[in-house]
């Protein structure tokens, strides 16, 4: 199985541990075998261990250690935010976040919606059953 996601300058990674959990960051330079210099529009450039990062499929085109403005421009040009939020991984994370932030009323509404959906599915299933038996 060849590798598809490489640590390289411009690779977008997701932080999976620590204070910046859940953030998308750009690998801007590699310090050594275990650490990368990492940057994001809303944070000061700093080092991160690869153990805290999960590589994504998205890669942007930047030089080694670009200025903040260049980085933000490159992120906009590559449309990283939309690509991420439309990818299945990104969508799953959004749904997880939404589920975690529900209040009781929301959960009630979801219950009603689920019952309605199940009702409609069952009706269709009953129709199909009748057709096959008839």
């Amino acid at each position: 199985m060849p590798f598809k996601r490489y640590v390289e300058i411009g690779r977008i990674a997701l932080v999976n541990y620590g204070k910046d959990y859940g953030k998308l960051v750009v690998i801007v330079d590699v310090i050594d075998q275990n650490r990368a210099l990492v940057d994001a529009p809303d944070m000061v450039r700093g080092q991160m261990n690869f153990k805290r990062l999960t590589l994504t499929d998205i890669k942007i085109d930047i030089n080694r250690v670009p200025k903040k403005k260049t980085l933000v421009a490159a992120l906009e040009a590559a449309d990283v935010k939309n690509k991420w939020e439309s990818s299945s991984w990104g969508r799953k994370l959004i749904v997880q976040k939404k589920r975690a932030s529900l209040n009781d009323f929301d959960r009630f509404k979801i219950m009603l919606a689920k019952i309605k959906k199940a009702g409609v599915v069952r009706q269709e299933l009953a129709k199909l059953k009748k057709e096959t038996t008839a």
Partner: protein
Amino acid sequence: MIITDTVQFLKFTYDEHERTIFSFVWAVCFGPDQELGFFSWPLYSVINHFHDLNSFLSASTTAAATVEDSSRGSHAGKMSYKFHQFQVVGRALPTESDEKPKIYRMKLWATNEVRAKSKFWYFLRKLKKVKKSNGQMLAINEIFEKNPTTIKNYGIWLRYQSRTGYHNMYKEYRDTTLNGGVEQMYTEMASRHRVRHHCIQVIKTATIPAKLCKRESTKQFHNSKIKFPLVFKKVRPPTRKLKTTYKASRPNLFV
């Protein structure tokens, strides 16, 4: 009369908080022995100045607080180092024969200021005829990294004591800060050579440009198109609270 005027002015203006500051200002300007009841005309200017000072202080603290908060926004990477870099300045005490002894400055690594001062005297004793008992410490400041967001190659020259004798060594490290590089050095010496930190003396450190690096392990990262896969990926629980001893299924270690 001036005195009554000032009294009225004071009664009108001060409150509990201001009184403490005012008494300090009073003590500073006029000496702590003078009673608060004795006013003189320069006090007008002091009070006015004090009011400005008070508002200035409060403004500066709020400004400092907001600046701190915004800059603290979000930092990636660790912020605490075990070894800090200090600049220590000291000299021998002046005597009749030597009115102006030479001042010596040293940059060294220690875990805290007290240790730094002690190390300073240790090294100075070995170089000059001066001890802590007949010397004085002039200044001790911590040195912080100027550009902690850029990667640098650090060369460290050190002298260490092994089980059989003293040796010199030159080691290279890639890091964002000098403190980080020095900490890497201490941990590496401990692991590779079993040398404890008190047996290590840092002779010199320098930021090495990429061309002059000697070690292959640092030179292999001098590649602007560096690219490598992460071969072994063990996914950790995002917080230590979610850690469990037993897992239901074997983990997937590929990417």
